[in-house]
């Protein structure tokens, strides 16, 4: 009974409390957080069971209102969708536990709308992941985008301006996507993804179909911040509150990447499209530019959250590279990198949140070696996250880059292999810049007094409280655990997702 309804349950688990919170929150603001946490906690077992069920016995479909597809809207939970739903629910749960204290410090008067918007955002994300209909996907995309604009606006003084820019560019993105669907609907008469996958090979020679695909990819590129359509991202992520950026940065762009995978590999046939218009290779070349640009810009940033935002652009580039290679190894690397980047970006943004709450700033220039004794655990988590970003074994980041490099070698894309390795080096430079400041007592030739006296300096602990530290450490631990479990993950789960056409 519950199995047939699985695709609907996760979005509903977020949507209903999202609407209840403002109603209850007017009278009892304190009820907002427990309600939000309960929703997220309830969604994890559902998503976990969904993944288990899909792996054991194939995709689950649910037809809304009993209207059979392709006339009606259907929700489909396949390996890719159910896997990413589980990632979204787990990461958002950890971030939400962390967010309670951050929210009460950074925006105490906006807690009720904050939790409501978070759940709306997650409902949109999970809806995007589970839908089997292109227009339905647009509606969920707009739900998550509108919630995202609102969330970005809850932040520092500049945040409404960043949110407004995000809104304008986000509307261009969703507008292009909608126009693209229109083109494809005119030519095919269908909006159902599975139905389109059957129809499109016969009409792929029509220019309007390809134009529709290009419009859709442009729109999705704007939403996932694919270079050079990334310019809304740094402002939006750095001026939003730490509780928001820790949620948007790991998940928002990843859901965009999922839409790209869905459209490019499941609705269209990548090999057939590539013969007519080089869309996948265009994505790969732009992504390669994004890897280098994002890494170089991250190097120039003086503020930790801004540095992480630029590093997100580079990491989206890695995902785009893997997709653009359009071979099974590159695809595996891209999906694995979606998972890994969600976890490591969450871990790093949580550390940035810890710093903001405990020190009141997250300026790289103001960090010094005392931090490694004031906040030892947060800094340890940061180091694990940084190692994973660079891609050093045994952290998870190594394995996704490993598959990306293998994909590049398999397709003889030597430039992309070089870009992936260069990106790793640049990552090392900008992360070690921070790690060096935190752990090494001697800098700029000036011996530190405390350390020079034999390290006798007493530094009082300013470590974050347990509710903030625990999610940070769990995420850092997960990066190490996933590194060890990655071959299991690839063989048992991800290989099920590789589309038949590759």
């Amino acid at each position: 009974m519950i199995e047939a309804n699985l695709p609907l349950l996760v979005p509903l688990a977020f949507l209903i409390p999202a609407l209840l919170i403002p109603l209850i929150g007017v009278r009892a603001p304190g009820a907002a957080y427990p309600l939000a946490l309960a929703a997220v906690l309830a969604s994890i077992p559902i998503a976990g069971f969904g993944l288990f069920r899909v792996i054991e016995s194939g995709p689950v479909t649910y037809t809304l209102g009993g209207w059979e597809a392709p006339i009606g809207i259907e929700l489909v939970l396949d390996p890719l969708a159910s896997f990413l739903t589980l990632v979204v629910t787990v990461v958002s749960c950890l971030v939400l536990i962390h967010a309670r204290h951050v929210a009460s410090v950074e925006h105490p008067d906006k807690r009720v709308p904050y939790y409501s918007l978070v759940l709306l955002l997650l409902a949109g994300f999970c809806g995007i992941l589970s839908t089997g209909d292109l227009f339905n996907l647009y509606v969920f995309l707009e739900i998550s985008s509108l919630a995202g604009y609102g969330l970005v606006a809850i932040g520092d003084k500049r945040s409404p301006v960043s949110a407004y820019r995000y809104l304008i560019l986000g509307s261009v993105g969703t507008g292009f996507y909608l126009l693209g669907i229109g083109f494809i609907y005119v030519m095919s008469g269908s909006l159902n993804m599975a139905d389109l996958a059957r129809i499109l090979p016969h009409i792929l020679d029509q220019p309007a179909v390809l134009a529709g695909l290009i419009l859709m990819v442009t729109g999705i590129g704007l939403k996932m911040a694919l270079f050079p359509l990334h310019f809304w991202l740094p402002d939006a992520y750095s001026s939003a509150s730490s509780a928001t950026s820790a949620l948007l940065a790991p998940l928002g762009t990843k859901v965009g990447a999922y839409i790209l995978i869905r459209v490019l590999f499941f609705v269209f046939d990548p090999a057939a499209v590539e013969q007519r218009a080089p869309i996948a290779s265009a994505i790969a070349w732009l992504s390669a530019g994004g890897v280098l640009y994002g890494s170089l810009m991250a190097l120039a940033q003086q503020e930790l959250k801004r540095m992480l935002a630029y590093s997100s652009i580079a990491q989206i580039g890695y995902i785009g590279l893997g997709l653009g290679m359009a071979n099974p190894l590159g695809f595996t690397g891209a999906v694995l990198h979606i998972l890994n980047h969600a976890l490591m970006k969450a871990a790093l943004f949580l550390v940035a949140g810890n710093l903001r709450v405990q020190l009141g700033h997250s300026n790289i220039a103001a960090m010094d070696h005392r931090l490694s004794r004031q906040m030892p655990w947060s800094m340890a988590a940061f180091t694990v996250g940084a190692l994973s970003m660079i891609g050093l074994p045994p952290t998870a980041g190594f394995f996704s880059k490993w598959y990306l490099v293998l994909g590049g070698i398999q397709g003889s894309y030597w430039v992309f292999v070089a870009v992936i390795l260069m990106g790793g080096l640049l990552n090392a430079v900008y992360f070690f810049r921070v790690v060096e400041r935190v752990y090494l007592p001697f800098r700029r030739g000036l011996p530190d007094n405390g350390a020079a006296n034999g390290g006798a300096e007493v530094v009082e602990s300013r470590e974050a409280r347990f509710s903030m530290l625990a999610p940070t450490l769990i995420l850092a631990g997960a990066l190490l655990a996933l590194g060890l479990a990655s071959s299991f993950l690839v063989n048992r789960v991800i290989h099920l997702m590789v589309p038949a056409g590759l």
Partner: protein
Amino acid sequence: MEIEFIAGHNLYWIISLLLLVGLYGMLAKRNLVKKLVGMNIFQTSIILFYVAIASKRNATVPVIDAALGSVDPAHYINPLPHTLMLTAIVVSVATTGVGFALLISIFRRYRTLDEDALLKRMR
């Protein structure tokens, strides 16, 4: 052939023009309210596109009723794109609402809605 191609698609040319006007307003105008107006024009052009692709000459509302004329499906316009656009209109209204809310919040903090003045005051 070329003139027929241009003249035969008047409606689509108008829609494309509206789309470009909207994009220009969103990206090039320095006043934040004008950007929002541009966004509305942009979204309206997409809505018009959907409305245009569904309509056809000498067709009637898609209600199957012998008293209204024919029961032949060829005589009805396609209702689906119009239904989709009801949703798109709701989305457009919601986006405009959020946009205005953000503009109010920006104006309260910086007392300006001009992008150049805003950039100066944000420093």
